[in-house]
């Protein structure tokens, strides 16, 4: 097969015939193959395919409709975030890692900051309000992430209403993010030592309104899907992986919990004060795509419970600090809205420019140079919507990370592609992968 693309010249297969499929043209393949129907067919799916959750490439070997061999090719979204972080300060690192798994940015920031805080030995000094705000944002984020997982998973099997209502509710969460952090995604809001900014006025009312609305809307998903015969027929028994398989492959998150094993780092290795919240770890016992859907749905209710408790706590913490009191570490300024947009608060400018030379020096040093982190390494994982997310943070005592490596649950869990899809049908591959819920931004980093 000849090509006009100069860069694809050497990538043609050396054996067999090649068909380029663009949709609506299956007939040409079946006719082309008619005389050699016994031959095995290798289908290259992706990296540009609407059903593969971003730039995931699947190489499927088929016998008829049955998948005999499935492999995943990744790396199409590799952006070198870990390398880039080595050239910025510890605080700037948050701005990079928030972009990895773009559906759960707060978790990326959180695990990185927990690692940095452990190296700085300030884990106990992070203010309570910052801890509660972190929990609030993370649980709201779990809601928005699970909503996308359910929405796109539904879309891929033709349940378009699930998609539209999923994105409708996600928009409400993103509105809350925008209100609290100023951005819908890529927040860089959780910083070493606390969070970037206090809650804006009126945020708690908005959150309470959201909780009330979600309590009405969440049952819609159950009503649409839980007992829907088409939905169940597509999901039940698909992507089956029992506890033994999950443990061997080190899978975590909803996949592990769908086997009935209640492993959740928020309970087993709590961080950020999770031990003080009332919630249950949701499990299911079918170990298939349907079970994972049910786990995610139930977890959204639990997240709502936690958000409710966090909002109650925040009501009693008005005016409390959100950044560590240590002036050698804590980001010196707070942001505020001025006549020319958002910037450093005028009070802070007045303080450093007119009142305190020391405050000016601290501001200058912290912003240009950053703080130094003691030599050592740390790994503090958190329970992200997709499973265990951890950052291996290494410091050589400088103002920049020596090395940061992210253990992303999507990257890890995608290894189960083969074992979940082989032996099933092509259409089930899509469902199996949707039940892993990989986010390629996190996989490739």
């Amino acid at each position, binding site marked *: 097969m000849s090509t006009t693309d100069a860069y694809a010249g050497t990538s043609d297969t050396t054996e067999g015939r090649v068909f380029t499929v663009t949709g609506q043209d299956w007939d040409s393949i079946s006719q082309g193959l008619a005389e050699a129907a016994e031959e095995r067919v290798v289908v290259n799916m992706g990296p540009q395919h609407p059903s593969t959750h971003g730039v995931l490439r699947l190489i499927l070997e088929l016998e008829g409709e049955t998948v005999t061999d499935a492999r995943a090719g990744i790396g199409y979204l590799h952006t070198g975030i870990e390398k880039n972080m080595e*050239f910025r300060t510890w605080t700037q690192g948050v701005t990079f890692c928030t972009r990895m798994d773009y559906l759960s940015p707060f978790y990326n920031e959180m695990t990185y900051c927990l690692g940095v805080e452990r190296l700085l030995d300030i884990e106990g000094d992070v203010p309570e309000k910052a801890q509660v705000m972190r929990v609030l944002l993370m649980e709201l984020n779990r809601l928005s992430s699970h909503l996308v997982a359910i929405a796109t998973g539904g879309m891929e099997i033709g349940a378009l209403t699930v998609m539209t209502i999923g994105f409708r509710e996600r928009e409400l969460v993103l509105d809350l993010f925008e209100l609290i952090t100023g951005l819908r995604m890529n927040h860089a809001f959780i910083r070493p030592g606390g969070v970037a900014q206090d809650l804006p006025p009126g945020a708690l009312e908005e959150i309470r309104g959201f909780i009330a609305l979600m309590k009405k809307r969440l049952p819609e998903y159950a009503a649409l899907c839980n007992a829907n015969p088409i939905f169940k027929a597509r999901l039940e028994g698909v992507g089956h992986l029992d506890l033994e398989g999950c443990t061997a492959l080190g899978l975590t998150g909803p996949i592990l919990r769908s086997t009935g094993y209640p492993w959740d780092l928020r309970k087993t290795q709590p961080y950020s004060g999770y031990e003080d919240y009332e919630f249950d770890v949701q499990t299911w016992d079918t170990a298939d795509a349907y079970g994972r859907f049910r786990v995610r749905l139930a977890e959204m209710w639990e997240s709502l419970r936690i958000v409710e408790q966090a909002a109650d706590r925040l009501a009693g913490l008005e005016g409390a600090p959100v950044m560590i009191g240590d002036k050698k570490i804590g980001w010196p300024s707070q942001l505020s809205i001025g006549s020319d947009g958002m910037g450093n608060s005028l009070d802070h400018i007045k303080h450093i420019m007119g009142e305190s030379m020391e405050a000016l020096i601290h501001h200058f040093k912290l912003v240009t*140079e950053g703080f130094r982190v003691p030599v050592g390494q740390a790994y503090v994982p958190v329970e992200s919507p997709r499973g265990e997310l951890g950052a291996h943070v290494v410091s*050589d005592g400088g103002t920049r990370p020596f090395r940061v490596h992210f*253990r992303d649950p999507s*990257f*890890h869990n995608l290894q189960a592609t083969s074992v979940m899809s082989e032996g099933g049908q092509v259409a089930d591959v899509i469902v199996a992968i949707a039940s892993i819920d990989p986010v390629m931004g996190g996989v490739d980093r």
Partner: protein
Amino acid sequence: VSDDSTTPEAAKEPAAQGGITQTPGQAAVDQSPENVPAPTGQVSQVGVRHGMFGVSGSGDTSGYGGLKSAVVFPAPAQRPFGGWFDEVADALETAARGAGLEHALGDVTVLRDDPALRFEFCASVSGVHYPEDAGRELHVVYHLGSMTWNRRIRLEVTAPDADPHVPSVTGVYPAADWHERETWDMFGVVFDGHTALTRILMPDDWPGHPQRKDYPLGGIPVEYKGGSVPPPDQRRSYH
């Protein structure tokens, strides 16, 4: 620590010791063993820091430009470690003796299968490149977890740049498959025994291993209104 020449001196003046009973001729460390500092483990230098303020690329006018300080990682902890770490260390030693191993970490199967250890979960494999840690430039760091005991340990293996070979753990932890591929891709560590050690994030024909410290970040100057901002690795920095 114990220097014989000082002992008679101390024995001459018992009143100065605050009433502590002493035996003449006994070394000070034997008289009050509780005050002897714990032995520290072997540390190795992994880098050198120049100057005091981390300035590079511009003149250091602080007067501290000639200062050189070693970057040294904390020494390995000594017994008693505290918490459950001693139990794990005991179990490791027992298991190693049982398996006839010189060192318990000679076989990670022990870590996974021993009932007292049960680190059945390999969370991640990560590489770190220390160009100045001579003879062991490449470190491979495994984060293992025990769901049975709810414990976590970090396992660190080193290899020299000249012979970057580390045994693969994929036979014991299939979950490490992609992680080892990533570490090969990013650092050039060869995991012996891995069945398909190919690049995973970079293209198959990519030259070099990007996360190594001798691999440049790359980038082009950003131009704005006639001015030019150099790429991040060439800007003035303080590290």
